[in-house]
């Protein structure tokens, strides 16, 4: 319990060794192939995620975007091995070449936090109410590194400094923190072992817009500094545009579109991506007409009885009979790919999708 100012030389030396050891960890590479996740329910099999594939190159950020219930958080939980034991998971997730799906808790012990760590969705409830924050961070460090409690605590102080929290507040309990501070504490915890892969599961959802942008710029700053690989789960396309090199857009448990962020946002191939983009406010550009906000009508289909064709067909203004009967394959255009039968007509769709009446006039549920 040495305060930051008075670290003894021995402690300072041990801490420096720990820091050096941890910062030597390379950023991780993750390749997910054909990941499907289903639950058996009384009314049949529920396909939460179907045939999702993507790759996170070492040292890059991948945005995982989609509306609530599209399965993006389920993917993250599957990667951490946190889904309930009766969940049916198939496919593989190669973390630096090692498949981490389907491992037991005991097998995951050395992998979790050490090589892949998590910034949770609801930091409000993610901290144990009866332990002080410092102890909770130390618990993670001590589980993986052979160091004394004092060294772990000193490391926790460093992590707190990194997220802009004063070291003395490590002694405080979660209920003494504001929402934004708790989120920062959770980020500090996720960074404690400098894992090669960071999974950020909607890290700003529970916060107000000002806090959101502060936390996101904090995450971006840390990323510049530490060069980890990260999967950022969010429904905010603007955040992805600012933070991620690549993006995967998910719809109803499937990949709708994926590719380099710049390409996907500039020239979306999938009508869902086009709709998603229109649904977010943009700053007006001088001399150009204001972009209207357009919401996508309808709701996500029931995944207990998924439609036989394209899952977006019922909400897509451009859907044809082919869309309603046959599920589209992924079509690759340049570095991008999209699950749409009509990727070659994307230019035409984009122009139409920018007009509010395109979405307003369609018959929902057809």
């Amino acid at each position, binding site marked *: 319990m040495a305060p930051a100012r008075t670290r003894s030389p021995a402690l300072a030396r041990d801490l420096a060794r720990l820091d050096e050891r941890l910062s030597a960890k390379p950023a991780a590479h993750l390749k997910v192939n054909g990941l499907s996740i289903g639950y058996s329910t009384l009314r049949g099999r529920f396909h939460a995620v179907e045939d999702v594939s993507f790759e996170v190159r070492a040292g890059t950020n991948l945005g995982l975007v989609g509306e609530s219930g599209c399965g993006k958080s389920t993917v993250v939980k599957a990667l*951490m091995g*946190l889904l309930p*034991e009766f969940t049916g998971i198939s496919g593989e997730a190669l973390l630096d070449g090692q498949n981490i799906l389907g491992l037991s*808790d*005991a097998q*995951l*012990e*050395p*992998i*979790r*936090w*050490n090589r892949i*760590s*998590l910034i*949770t969705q*609801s930091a409000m*409830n*993610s*901290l*144990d*109410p*009866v*332990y*002080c924050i410092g102890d909770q961070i130390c*618990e*993670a460090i001590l*589980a*993986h590194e052979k160091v004394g409690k004092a060294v772990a605590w000193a490391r926790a102080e460093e992590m707190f400094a990194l997220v802009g929290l004063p070291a003395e507040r490590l002694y405080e*309990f979660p*209920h003494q923190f504001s929402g934004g501070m708790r989120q920062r504490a*959770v980020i500090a*915890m996720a960074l404690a072992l400098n894992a090669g892969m960071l999974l950020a599961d909607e890290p700003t959802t529970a916060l107000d817009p000002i806090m959101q942008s502060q936390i996101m710029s904090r995450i971006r700053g840390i990323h510049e500094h530490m060069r980890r690989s990260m999967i950022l789960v969010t429904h905010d396309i603007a955040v992805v545009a600012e933070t991620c090199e690549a993006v995967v857009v998910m719809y109803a448990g499937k990949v709708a579109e994926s590719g380099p962020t710049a390409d996907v946002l500039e020239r979306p191939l999938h009508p869902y991506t086009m709709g998603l983009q229109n649904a977010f406010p943009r700053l007006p550009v001088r001399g150009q007409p204001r972009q209207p906000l357009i919401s996508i009508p309808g709701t996500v289909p029931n995944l207990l009885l998924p439609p036989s064709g394209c899952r977006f067909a019922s909400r897509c203004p451009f859907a044809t009979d082919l869309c309603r009967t046959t599920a589209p394959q992924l079509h690759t255009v340049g570095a991008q790919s999209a699950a749409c039968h009509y990727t070659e007509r994307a230019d035409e769709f984009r122009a139409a999708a920018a007009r509010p009446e395109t979405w307003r006039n369609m018959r929902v549920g057809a």
Partner: protein
Amino acid sequence: MRAYILRRLAQSVLVVWAVTTIMFFMFRVMPADPTAILLERGLTDEARQALLEQWGLTGSMWDQYLAYLGNLIQGDFGSSFFYRKPVWEVLWPLIVNTLWIAIPGLLLGAAIGAAIGTAVGWARRGGKLERSGIFLATVIRGVPNFVIGIALLTIFSSTLGWFPGFGMGDPGATTGFARYFTLDFLHHLALPLIAVIIYFMPENLLLMRSGVVENRTEDYIELVRAKGVPQRRVAWHAARNSMLPLITWLFPALAETIAGIVVIEIVFSWPGVGRELVLAVTRQDYPLAQAAFFLLAVMIVLANLAADLVYGKLDPRVVYK
């Protein structure tokens, strides 16, 4: 914090006073004559009157009450009618005897119950461990404690002959304080102690289990799992949080359990306060019975106070005002 404790202590004094007063008048309105128990045939009216006077039972009820209260404040519980000795001298060794089965019994019962409850709560839902754990706990909880006592006696004392059946020492065993450290005493202690543990454990087990089941799906447990700590440690987080409701229940439950220990003392003929309490009431031995009830009231009130203070230690969110 200090102000809180002082205020709670003042409240406790008030509660103990109220209990004492109620006890005092309840014994006085019972339609019986304490001198009858002495069964001294040919007790003349004069002699009887002299006894009543000596026992302080002659003045008005109000005078008796004030005298009793005055003595109590000075720490004087009076003299037992039956033993013709100061109450304190009669009770003191009995208190020690009761504590020998009560404290280890309650602590072990709570600890064992909490430990098994955590294991059962953490086990796979609907699995063998969970189902058998709940089943056994519910059955044991439903059995009256004298049945547990009699069953233990029948099996381990009468049939197997492993343990003595009654009392706390063989005749001619060491007396005085040294007796508590003899093998003979521990041999006698085993069965009543086990009875208290079995009696107190199931409720702890069930409460702890439901707490762990509730907590294991919380977000913070998921994060602890994600940290890659051993599963034991994850379960500990759930258990640690489940202790909070257990503690609030535990201390008031001690009161009920002390009542249960009375029965166990009788079944095993364990010379404790509880057994003496029942005897004193049947013998109309007011001073002894009142003192025993007074002690129980103080213990229960202190247990409740302790619960509040321990709760603040376990849950940092609790603020004392």
